[in-house]
């Protein structure tokens, strides 16, 4: 009686087994001819291949792998040869002459000359003079800030750029030099708009994208025509992970060589395993987080700050004594951050100037300063503003856990001063809209008191300094703060010829910001990355002192990479060989395999036509269905 039933269960399981035949336990896909692939993981999503649409770090990374910038970024983010191999500047500082290397080729074999650079810069110039934005508008400010007025290419190796601003920003321009023979055929508006720039991409950078799946990954192939040193990786795959736990597991298992943005807890766990194949890097990021105040002075009907106190520098200064930044770093980041001070991050080591008279955390000092500034306590212990109203401040932040921890600490500290804080996380886009002043388009109501948010910088401090200028109210300014001296210094440093003088001006701007405190810069988060050393060697950090190996500025970090397995083979003693020579050996050893034209390797594409797989799924469904039918017929015959 029981047996048939059990027998049937067995048959059901056999049907299940039919589906299970699709699932062999071990993946065996490696063959001898496999290219050496560098696999990197990130939690950011690539937004497209059109360089005019770059937004996130991963977009910039892919753009600079594809295309050279006119001048590259060295290991300490200093100007190094890029599309141009050298440059000179006229005595008045307004004319630049770039020497473009002779015989350079695009990845499709076409000659790459000064005409390509001229065309690209003219394209940007045409757009900015016509008041048109390119793509999302992230790139053309690099050329605008450098004051470029005219470009010309008198011969194939010379590019002359005229400027009306005497500053060195042209050497840090993030504009990719595009192949004229491809881009000039496009309508200028389409080129920076809806053009997808489909793979395979033609560029002059060390690697070009040959495969792109939106939201999933990009695969890049080494450019055999690249003018610089060849990296050991034949291909680079950058995969987007929706879940950082999975990314870390993949790194541990060896399915990834590099993981960007490792959560602090996992970072410490990976770090506690020295000698293993995984190396962790606690690098400085070019980011700061600030507690910002609504400094907008004019009244806004139905909006604005809840008290005029936040517009008073003395009030903001006093609150600064009630913020224990070290406690935030310890509690929110498990120590993986740097205590903040100014709007220029330590990543920009040459520009960051620690202010004089740093505030030391002391609740009693804060209380005394509030009393002195005219904010007394009432009988029930509430702090009153100058209108005699009890101060209650709103505090918002985009919902990240680190900011939430910082916010809850600030609520406690300010409560000790008699100031109630209503803290709540807010959706990023909603918060962004709430911060808008009446000057913005569409106009906003600046309906906030305080918020915690971040800014990310460039190699040059200009962009981070700009945020706090009064000209930016209605655009990027979010504290809506104004300071005439700050504005004056901003313009002055932009046109400064003398490096020392510019440093002094930038330092003064940081001091003004710190004293006036539209922002209390809370912390500079660390960039926590991890990489494996068993497949690739030659990892170098950028900046060399405190940076990270990949996802920095420019693509050179990839060209330093060596094949970790190949390095062991050469007869020359690895101890005596200099890093440069062993890299050269690897490059020459791997060169023959990479000499294939990138596009021919397109047939190794992993994009399986999904239709056949769907059909297989349907066949399995049908098979199971038939089996069930057959069994019920069998059962009928049993009678």
């Amino acid at each position, binding site marked *: 009686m029981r047996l048939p*039933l059990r027998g*049937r*269960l067995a048959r*059901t399981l056999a049907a*299940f087994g039919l*589906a299970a035949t*699709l*699932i*062999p*336990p*071990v*993946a065996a*896909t490696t*063959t001898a001819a*496999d290219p050496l692939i560098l696999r990197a993981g990130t939690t950011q*999503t690539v*937004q*497209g291949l059109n360089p005019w649409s770059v*937004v996130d770090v991963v977009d910039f990374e892919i753009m600079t792998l594809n295309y050279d910038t006119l001048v590259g970024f060295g290991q300490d983010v200093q100007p190094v040869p890029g599309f141009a191999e050298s440059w000179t500047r006229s005595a008045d500082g307004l004319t630049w002459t770039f020497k473009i290397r002779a015989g350079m080729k695009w990845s499709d074999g076409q000659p790459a000359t000064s005409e390509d650079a001229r065309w690209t810069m003219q394209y940007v110039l045409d757009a900015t003079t016509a008041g048109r*934005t390119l793509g*999302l*508008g*992230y790139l053309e*400010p*690099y050329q605008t800030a450098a004051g470029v007025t005219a470009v010309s290419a008198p011969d194939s190796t010379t590019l002359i750029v005229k400027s009306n601003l005497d500053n060195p920003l042209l050497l840090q321009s993030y504009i990719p030099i595009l192949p004229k023979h491809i881009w000039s055929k496009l309508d200028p508006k389409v080129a920076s708009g*809806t053009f997808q720039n489909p793979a395979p991409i033609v560029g002059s950078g060390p690697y070009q994208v040959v*495969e792109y*799946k*939106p*939201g*999933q*990954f990009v695969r890049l192939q080494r450019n055999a025509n690249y003018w610089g040193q060849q990296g050991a990786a034949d*291909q680079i795959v950058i*995969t987007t992970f*929706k879940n950082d736990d*999975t990314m870390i*597991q*993949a790194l541990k*298992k060896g*399915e990834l060589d590099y993981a960007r943005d490792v959560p602090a807890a996992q970072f410490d766990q990976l770090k506690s395993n020295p000698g293993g194949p995984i190396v962790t890097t606690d690098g400085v990021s070019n980011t700061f987080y600030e507690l910002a105040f609504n400094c907008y002075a004019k009244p806004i009907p139905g909006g604005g700050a809840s008290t005029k106190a936040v517009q008073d520098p003395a009030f903001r200064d006093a609150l600064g004594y009630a913020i224990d930044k070290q406690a935030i770093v310890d509690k929110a980041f498990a120590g993986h951050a740097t205590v903040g001070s100014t709007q220029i991050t330590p990543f920009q080591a040459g520009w960051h100037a620690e202010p004089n008279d740093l505030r030391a955390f002391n609740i009693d000092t804060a209380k005394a300063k509030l009393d002195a500034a005219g904010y007394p306590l009432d009988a029930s212990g509430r702090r009153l503003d100058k209108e005699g109203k009890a101060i209650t401040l709103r505090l918002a932040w985009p919902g990240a856990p680190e900011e939430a921890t910082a916010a809850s600490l600030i609520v406690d500290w300010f409560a000790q001063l008699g100031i109630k804080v209503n803290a709540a996380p807010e*959706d*990023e*886009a909603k*918060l*962004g*809209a709430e911060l808008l002043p009446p000057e913005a388009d569409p106009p906003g109501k600046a309906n906030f008191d305080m918020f915690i948010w971040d800014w990310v910088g*460039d190699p040059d401090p200009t*962009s981070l300094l700009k945020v706090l200028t009064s000209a*930016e109210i*209605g*655009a*990027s300014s979010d504290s809506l703060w104004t300071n005439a001296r700050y504005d004056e210094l901003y313009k002055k440093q932009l046109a400064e010829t003398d490096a020392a003088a510019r440093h002094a001006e930038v330092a003064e701007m940081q001091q003004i910001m710190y004293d006036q405190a539209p922002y209390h810069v809370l912390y500079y988060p660390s960039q926590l990355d991890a990489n494996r050393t068993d497949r690739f060697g030659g990892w170098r950090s950028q900046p060399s002192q405190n940076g990270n190996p990949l996802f920095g500025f420019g693509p050179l970090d990839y060209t330093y990479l060596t094949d970790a397995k190949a390095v062991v083979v050469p007869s020359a003693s690895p101890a005596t060989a200099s890093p440069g020579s062993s890299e050269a050996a690897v490059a020459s050893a791997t060169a023959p395999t990479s000499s294939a034209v990138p596009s021919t390797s397109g047939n*190794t594409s*992993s994009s*399986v036509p*999904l239709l056949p797989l*769907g059909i297989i*799924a349907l066949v399995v469904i049908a098979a199971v269905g038939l089996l069930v039918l057959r069994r*019920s017929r069998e059962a*009928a015959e049993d009678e």
Partner: protein
Amino acid sequence: MSGRYLLSKVGQAIFTIVMLLILNFALFRMMPGSPERILGRNPNVSAEAIAATRERWGLDKPVFPDQFLGYVAATAQGDLGFSFVYRGLPVVDVLADRIWPTVILFGLGEIIAIVVGVALGAYTGWRRGGLVDHLGNGASLVLYATPYFLIGMTLLLVFAVGLGWFPTYGMFQIGATYNGYLDQLTDFASHLALPLATVALGLIGQYSIVMRSSIVETLGEEYITTARAKGILDRRILRRHAMPNAMLPMATLIAINLGYVVAGAITVEVVFNWPGLGTLTVDALTARDYPVLQGIFLILSVSVVVANLIADVGYQFLDPRVKA
């Protein structure tokens, strides 16, 4: 089968889909914030650039009637618009790339779960009170109560990282060189195994519990006693008399479950970085990619309506009383 019954059911389904279209449009416009505001956090971006972006995506036009009419007209022509986050890629292309991985993962997962869940439920119900029942029902309860995320992460840690049998993420080994189609299929299957097991395990518990209680209830009916009295074999009683009636609640459950496919897809696909609709939903939500979200919701809601229609029609075969 009555033609009128079928017609009215189809009519209801079409009406539901039309209402969904309207809701689908309104829902995303009611969300706070706006997609181009994210640009405001870049110090290099000018106000003009933000305005240009609004114009490009048609966000400068009034929501009603301009945006709404445009949406209805385009949807009727099968044009779902352009993705914001993937910089103007047509939504249809974005969805086409992502729908198959989810259909394969959840289609196969559902089938395995139905077959195993029904068998397990019927067996434990039949052998109610025995050791198999206690073990089977206990396991089902545990699986039912465990979130996909936990099942997935456990499988990943044990079978992918610990034992190393399966890869940890993705659908293929990207950039791999294959020796023919079978090699490629093997790669796909090994990537599919763990997410598929997660989906199946998550559903088996649910199906088995419902099937068990349904069988237990049916076995108490008088016609079963009559059948026994007639001396019919036990296995035939179970198969011919108990199972068909016990299957009714299962049909409902399976149809309802299809609605949760994307909800489930989000967690399972996120764990294994499976490139389906779930991971796409996460991306589209964080970036406020209205057109892509609308496309996903449209696919999802239409598939739920169709699944319910099939269930309604299917009842006629399973339960003669429905043929009213």
